[in-house]
């Protein structure tokens, strides 16, 4: 509005009325053309909740603990995840059916949508926000898209199911191959992708994580009694066995849902990782990658997520114990709270500073908000079969 005011000031008195009319006209035009500026809403405390069965996203406000809208028409969202643009306005949603959808969380609508594969399992956004990569089971591989247009800019076929896709600094993506036990690093900083293949990660990597500094990539293995780490700061990263033989001499328990390693937990100096086929979480020193402890849990852990300050780790469980949450104190590594929010607790998301946590309780059709200090339930929000909860603060974190 500044130029208009200056224009009026500089006008001679005889031209006053004409100028005022002109100024009003400009003001009206400005109102029409820049509604965003006049009705500005910040996105820093917003988020999206995946409603898996109905193919919709609930737009939520973390500070108001409220749902503020719904975006529909996103296809099969079972096991869907999403990432945010650096300005926290757009989300890129990776559907199970191969759909890649760009949504505007301010306008609460779909901006673009492409069917990029037949069956996919998550994605990542590059550090510069220019590219989104999607990990596909069918056809196996990774496809990379321009975040503005959703046009494909690179196709990286692997010939098999691709899992554990993460972004790391330098406009690179790292992912692993279920069938061949390889990890590939795709450097997309240049015109054509440069691929580095690292064999020997171990049998059947099922998921992977990268630390917030982008340095350590850890793959969980279905077919081995250990996990494998890579130091991505090395010029030639080599697979390093961690937690060797963690289940040795013990009967493998049935796993009714594979653990997730995204949403990695760095609690103080330790990582916390869900064991596979054992009802426990495993603690690993982040620097030496040596085991520092184990905590027995209620069931097969699915997510073990650290509160952002690292003082607590919240754990949920596979079917049929998925009505329960346990909270572990990271100093003593002991369970300090055990409760049953309701049937089908699928996902947890902390507020960026960790004072509250949101839980999706699928079969109750509710999101439940808890105080992480007192464990008091603060709010229930209606949602249709909610699964993943994603706050926009993820936009500024590597590997989420």
């Amino acid at each position, binding site marked *: 509005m500044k130029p208009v005011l200056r224009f009026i000031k500089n006008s001679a008195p005889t031209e006053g009325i004409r100028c005022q009319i002109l100024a009003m006209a400009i003001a009206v035009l400005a109102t029409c053309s820049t509604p965003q500026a006049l009705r500005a809403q910040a996105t820093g405390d917003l988020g999206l909740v995946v409603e898996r069965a109905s193919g919709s996203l609930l737009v939520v406000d973390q500070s108001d603990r409220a749902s503020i809208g719904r975006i529909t028409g996103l296809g099969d969202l079972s096991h869907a995840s999403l990432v945010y643009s650096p300005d926290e306005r757009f989300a890129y949603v990776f559907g199970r059916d191969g759909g890649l959808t760009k949504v505007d969380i301010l306008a609460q609508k779909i901006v673009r949508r492409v069917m990029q594969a037949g*069956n996919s399992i998550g994605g990542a956004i590059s550090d510069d926000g220019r590219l989104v990569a999607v990990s596909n089971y069918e056809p196996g591989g990774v496809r990379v898209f321009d975040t503005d247009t959703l046009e494909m800019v690179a196709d990286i076929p692997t010939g098999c199911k691709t899992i554990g896709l993460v972004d790391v600094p330098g406009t690179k993506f790292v992912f692993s191959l279920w069938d061949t036990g390889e990890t590939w690093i795709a450097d997309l900083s240049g015109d054509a992708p440069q691929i580095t293949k690292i064999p020997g990660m171990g049998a*059947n990597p099922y998921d992977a994580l990268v630390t917030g500094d982008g340095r350590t990539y850890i793959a969980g293995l*279905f077919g081995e009694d250990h996990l494998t780490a890579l130091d991505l700061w090395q010029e030639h990263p080599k697979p390093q066995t961690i937690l060797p033989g963690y289940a040795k001499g013990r009967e493998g328990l049935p796993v009714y849902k594979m653990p997730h390693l995204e949403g990695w937990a760095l609690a103080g100096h330790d990582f916390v990782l869900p064991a596979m086929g054992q009802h426990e979480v495993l603690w690993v020193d982040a620097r030496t990658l040596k085991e520092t402890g184990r905590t027995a849990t209620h069931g097969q852990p699915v997510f073990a997520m650290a509160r952002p300050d690292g003082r607590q780790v919240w754990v949920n469980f596979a079917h049929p114990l998925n009505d329960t949450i346990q909270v572990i104190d990271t100093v003593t590594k002991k369970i300090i709270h055990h409760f049953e929010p309701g049937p089908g607790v699928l996902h947890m998301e902390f507020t960026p500073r960790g004072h509250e946590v949101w839980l999706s309780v699928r079969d109750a059709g509710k999101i439940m908000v808890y105080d992480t200090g007192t464990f008091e339930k603060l709010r229930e929000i209606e949602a249709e079969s909610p699964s993943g909860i994603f706050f926009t603060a993820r936009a500024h974190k590597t590997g989420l």
Partner: protein
Amino acid sequence: MNRVTLILAFTALPAVAGEPDALALERLVRQDCGSCHGLTLKGGLGPDIRPAALSHYKTDTLKAVILDGIPGTPMPPWRPLLSDSEAGWIAEYLLTGESP
């Protein structure tokens, strides 16, 4: 199996002793088999388990796979959670694509 698990199993599938509860089992197939095979059963980390993909299976063989799993693969044994008749119901449901 501990007591908590037993109670939960009974809560989820109230018809363990008698006739299989079709609604509860259909939900189990979609939501829990769906963890690996996809909500639409067209496959994920686990293979496609829609009728066409399973047509080479006899009902009893498929029931045995459900109850005992496939060692060396992520397919777990469901025997701790399902009765014989429930596994039979699921096998039939998967092979025909409809409630038996």
